[in-house]
């Protein structure tokens, strides 16, 4: 069998076994391999389609034929009603969740980066700040965000300090920023720690100062590496902005809740869920893509 591979020029008996000058033609062996690969992939496609149909079909039948399905679809999937309340939900979404996300994401980025830099610095002058930053991260990574929102939202106004806001929207943002900064600081710190010490050594040996080394060599590499997890945190942040509704902020979830308690129809909740999905699904897809790219880049570097 193996001798056949050499006659790659269509089995012309007079031709040299290896012909570099002429047009390459796949050998019969290669053609055979291609045909069986094609057949195999066709068979795999068929199996995948069949099994999907079977599993998803069964699931659909079980749900639809269940005794409560009629009532459920009337109270959760009343699309006419759903589109009627959609404007209110969208208003809440754009006026609260989106604005909250934008303000919080920016502040969290700045605060998280600052905390990460303080925690990774070795300067003796920063020692008290380092202790504070470590305590901060320990505390706010360990407390459920809902509790922080409640504590900030009800605790700060209770202090009755003059000039400090009682606006639940502002207090809600502050609570979100406090919590997420602790997470983001740790993500960025881990990125900084993954930059190899030899990169620092190279930068310092060129005469760059500690700060310049951080600014031009360490941080650009660190932030690039942690972009996928940071995007992941952004998706979580968008969803968690809904938690401030507990303070009475009329966001998408609160707007849906108000409607639901009026009509006892739960379709507004489903609509609110869909509104979140429209934003989060593209973002998670984008996150997956950046993650894949960064892995590819690291692999390429590993080979160089």
């Amino acid at each position, binding site marked *: 069998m193996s001798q056949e591979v050499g006659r790659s020029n269509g089995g012309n008996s007079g031709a040299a076994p290896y012909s570099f000058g002429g047009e390459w033609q796949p050998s019969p062996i290669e053609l055979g391999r291609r045909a069986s690969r094609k057949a195999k992939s066709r068979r795999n496609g068929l199996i995948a389609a069949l099994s999907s149909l079977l599993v998803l079909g069964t699931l659909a039948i079980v749900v639809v034929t269940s005794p409560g399905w009629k009532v459920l679809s009337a109270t959760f999937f009343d699309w006419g009603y759903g589109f009627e309340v959609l404007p209110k939900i969208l208003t809440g979404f754009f006026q609260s969740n989106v604005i909250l996300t934008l303000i919080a994401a920016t502040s969290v980025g700045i605060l998280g980066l600052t905390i990460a830099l303080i925690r990774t610095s070795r300067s003796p002058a920063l020692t008290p700040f380092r202790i504070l930053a470590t305590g901060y991260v320990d505390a706010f990574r360990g407390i459920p965000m809902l509790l922080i929102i409640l504590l900030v939202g009800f605790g700060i106004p209770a202090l009755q300090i003059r000039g400090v806001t009682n606006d639940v929207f502002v207090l809600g943002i502050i609570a979100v920023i406090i919590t997420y900064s602790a997470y983001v600081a740790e993500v960025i710190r881990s990125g900084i720690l993954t930059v190899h010490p030899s*990169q620092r050594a*190279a930068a310092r*040996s*060129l*005469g*760059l100062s500690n700060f310049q080394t951080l600014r031009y060599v360490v941080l650009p*590499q660190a932030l690039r590496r942690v972009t996928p997890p940071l995007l992941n945190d952004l998706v979580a942040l968008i969803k968690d902005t809904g938690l401030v509704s507990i303070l009475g902020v009329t966001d998408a979830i609160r707007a849906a809740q108000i409607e639901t308690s009026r009509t006892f129809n739960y379709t507004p909740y489903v609509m609110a869920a869909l509104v979140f999905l429209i934003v989060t699904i593209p973002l998670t897809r984008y996150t997956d893509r950046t993650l894949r790219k960064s892995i590819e880049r690291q692999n*390429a*570097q590993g080979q*160089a």
Partner: protein
Amino acid sequence: MSNPVLELVEVRKAFGAEVVLEDISIKVPEHTATVLIGASGSGKSTMLRCINLLELIDDGVIKLDGIDITDVSTNPDEIRRKLGMVFQSFNLFPHMKVLENIILAPMRVHGLGKEEATEKALELLTRFGLREKADQYPDRLSGGQQQRVAIIRSLAVEPRLLLLDEVTSALDPVLVNEVLSTVRDLKDHGMTMVLATHEMGFAKQVADEVCFLERGRIIEWGSPSEMLENPKDPRTQDFLKRVHEAGRL
């Protein structure tokens, strides 16, 4: 005779209880190359890192142009500006293009304008036959090309002294020569350098002085012909014999 560019006087370095350099004294006059040889772990790299102040020494003095750089009042950043260092593992900045790697220090440390820095960098790249790689990222280059870029990067700041730490040890045998000829070129142009290497043939070509280190001590030193052909100390003889057997001479 003026001061040597570099002088080490009885330098000692320990990591905890482990002494890695002991009683190291050398002089490196201007336009000369001093080659450090010795087995892995003998202290060659540590010695270079100490000269560059990447490691603090535990005793002794290091002088650059007659000035004590190990004095606690010296600013290490200022000293490093005058020294170039090339590492075994290249250590190019992977997020920067070749040109950006080279102009970083001239711009940020030496205050050159971007245009001037770029012009000088392109001149160097052209001189070493890497002009067309200026806009590539380091991971697109072969190991030999990366190391030559690293050498150019350290040259761009016009160092008083160049430190080369086993610059060919991470390279395929076929790529070693292009890097070695770059170093030879620098030597011919009068660059003062200290280099650690396992390439004895190369050491013979560029060295003005060869130092053999074992366990952190300089066992023997002298001209390359003395050291590599007629070493007196049995430990040097033994080391060279082993290198010879490994086919690296």
